[in-house]
């Protein structure tokens, strides 16, 4: 269970911002992707690698890896929300977080104070999984599936961050 006690004031250099923004689009699927990325900014492959390593060590990069389409693999996902009494929230969270398909789980400042996502593999039944979690926790969840997607992808623009928009 991670409290949001992250370090403050992690400042990124201009080069780091540019590299991260570019790399968020996906690196090239070629033998030397970091050399290609570095070319745009006048950096060598080694320099790019060192920068990403240090960003990973600083905890700015959570994971450098593949972004996989769960939908294409036949997984079903849903956003769920619940109203949980304060004194029971950690107990409920513990039950939910044990489920591998619960990937995001947050306390939010609202009557619906617990918001989490659940994904299940193609051979499983989403509604059955929801019911069993409801039974285990003793609470009902509001189901908010995605009906349409206008934008998906956490490609944040770090370069503009300090500038005028």
């Amino acid at each position: 269970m991670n409290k949001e006690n992250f370090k403050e004031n992690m400042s990124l250099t201009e080069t780091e911002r540019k590299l991260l923004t570019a790399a968020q689009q996906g690196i090239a699927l070629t033998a030397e992707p970091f050399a290609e990325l570095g070319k745009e900014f006048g950096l060598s492959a080694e320099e790019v690698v060192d920068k990403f390593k240090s960003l990973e060590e600083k905890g700015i990069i959570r994971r450098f890896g593949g972004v996989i389409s769960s939908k294409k693999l036949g997984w079903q996902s849903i956003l769920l929300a619940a109203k949980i009494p304060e004194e029971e929230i950690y107990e409920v969270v513990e039950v939910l977080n044990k489920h591998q398909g619960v990937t995001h789980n947050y306390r939010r400042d609202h009557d619906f104070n617990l918001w989490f996502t659940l994904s299940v593999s193609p051979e499983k039944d989403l509604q059955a999984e929801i019911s069993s979690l409801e039974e285990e926790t003793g609470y009902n969840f509001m189901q908010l599936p995605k009906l349409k997607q206008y934008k998906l992808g956490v490609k944040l623009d770090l370069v503009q961050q300090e500038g005028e928009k």
Partner: protein
Amino acid sequence: MSLSGDEKELLSLLQTDLPLTTRPFKRLAEKLGWTEEEVLTGLQKLADQGILKRIAPLLHHRQAGFKANGMVVWQIAREKEDEVGQRLAGFSEVSHCYLRPTTEEWPYNIFTMVHAETEEELSEIVEKMAASIDYQDYQIISSTEEFKKSSLQYFS
């Protein structure tokens, strides 16, 4: 979509940390006992099928300077939802924008995730978003505690 054993192996490996070296796919190849060329061909095939969206750094928003992250929900009339959804999605500070159903207890149908450096900046952006669609019926629902944030393990 059915995957071969090789493809599953490759995808599983892609869910771990990519080796940060100048030849990362050569390193993956060594782990799999494949050639670098075979890895690159496999990656391209998965990308062409849309299974592999990209290989990229996933960020901790907070550490990257986005300390104010809000789920902003909007109550939008059905005939306007697509127009509004697309307009809100156009803001660079918005990472996700979805249409979701409403319930008796929940009147908000458009969900946006908005990221900013400070709470003040977040409010300013949301005000700008609201002005752009000429609509004020929204709520900023901030996360106050992260209980879990992980990636799915597909083949474990």
